[in-house]
């Protein structure tokens, strides 16, 4: 029985999904903070939000890079 493979799949799923969700949630939260009226430095939080969005996108792209056999040849 391929219990090890099952575990690997479960673990990989968890790590990948949590990474993307956490980064995106941070980005959403920072965007929300940047939109607050009384916020002192909206520019800083906004750019931080964009960094998070960017990292999230990179994480997805890296995942695709790993999966598409064309790149790993």
């Amino acid at each position, binding site marked *: 029985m391929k219990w090890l493979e099952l575990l690997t799949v*479960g673990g990989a799923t968890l790590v990948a999904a949590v990474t993307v969700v956490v980064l995106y949630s941070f980005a959403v939260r920072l965007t929300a903070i940047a939109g607050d009226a009384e916020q002192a430095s909206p520019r800083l939080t906004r750019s931080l939000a964009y960094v998070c969005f960017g990292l999230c996108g990179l994480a997805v792209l890296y995942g695709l890079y790993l999966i598409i056999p064309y790149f790993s040849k």
Partner: protein
Amino acid sequence: MVALVIALALFFDFTNGFHDTANAMATPIATGAIKPKTAVALAAVLNLVGAFLSTEVAKTVSGGIIREGSGGVQITPDIIFAGLMGAVLWNMITWLKGLPSSSSHALFGGLIGAAIAGIGFSSVNLEVLLQKVILPAVFAPVIAGAVAYICTRLAYALTARHDPETGSKLTQKRGGFRTGQIFTSSLVALAHGTNDAQKTMGIITLVLIAAGTQPTGTGPQLWVIAACALAIAVGTYAGGWRIIRTMGSGLTEVKPAQGFAAETSTASAILASSHLGFALSTTQVASGSVIGSGMGRKGTTVRWNMVGKIALGWLFTLPAAGIVGALTALLVKTGVVGVVIAAVVGTAAVLFMFFYSRKSDVGHHNAVEVEEAGQAVRFAKKKALARARAKANKPKDTQR
């Protein structure tokens, strides 16, 4: 016979496409992130792209369950024809009922039934069946559901905003997740393309090898890849609106952040499994994610009786498709007349179900009524929050 099998395989690919549109696009449609028609078009294009990206799955999915090659039995196009017939008919029935059931299980069931009827019980490798079909069927929804549950919890915890002094809730501003859903659902559609179009490619290649037009041990030819990609894309575009309704609003109410978490889990589970070689069914992963995310968000209830119906559908998939496959195999065994009868009866059954479905029209205009409701929530936030709190105070749903 070979041409007939290829035609049927492509039709199976088509049903697979419209059966599984829901997996990718039900949640964004339900939250109003994408308009229904745009959603299916996007899913169709990404399926097309995905089908070309990887052909790894094509080689592994169908192999092994039926003892083939030396020392085993020879798979004939007849058996594959019968198996496909079972898969196609079961796909049509579940679509009519709006049940998301696994197309790959239907295919396995059909092939197994056909092999038992056509060759004998010894032709089926029970251990491989357990390992490749039954265990993944149990674990796919569990893994996806657990991950989606965690992700939903995280997403809501990280974006929950309280006033530091008073502790009262601020406006949450989770609108960003709606945009994010477009990307995550696209990823699911892409994953589906890399996964499900492969099965048909594998089948057609198997037939071509069996017929002797292609050397053993070679991968799918380019025209096979193109035809399969196209068939699944067209099927996806046709849209299984009945199943979208079930997945988008039948299981649980879906909100953007929750949908985002569910789709991310679905996409990572499918991509991880198809890449690491423990094939999970797209449909079961997606259903598990939606259920898990429903449990993760406070103030939602999961409609367990619908979950039960779907689970029952999954239980029946293998035997039901198997019986149809077996009957077809028996018919085909009798010779050319049997093949003609099987083909005619099959076509008639599909046409009948199609026209029967016309009686209660479910299309992009009425698949998910939640779309407007999802938009309305923006204005009625406080009410929704009060409701959520009231529900959170109630004893939690007992988890399985």
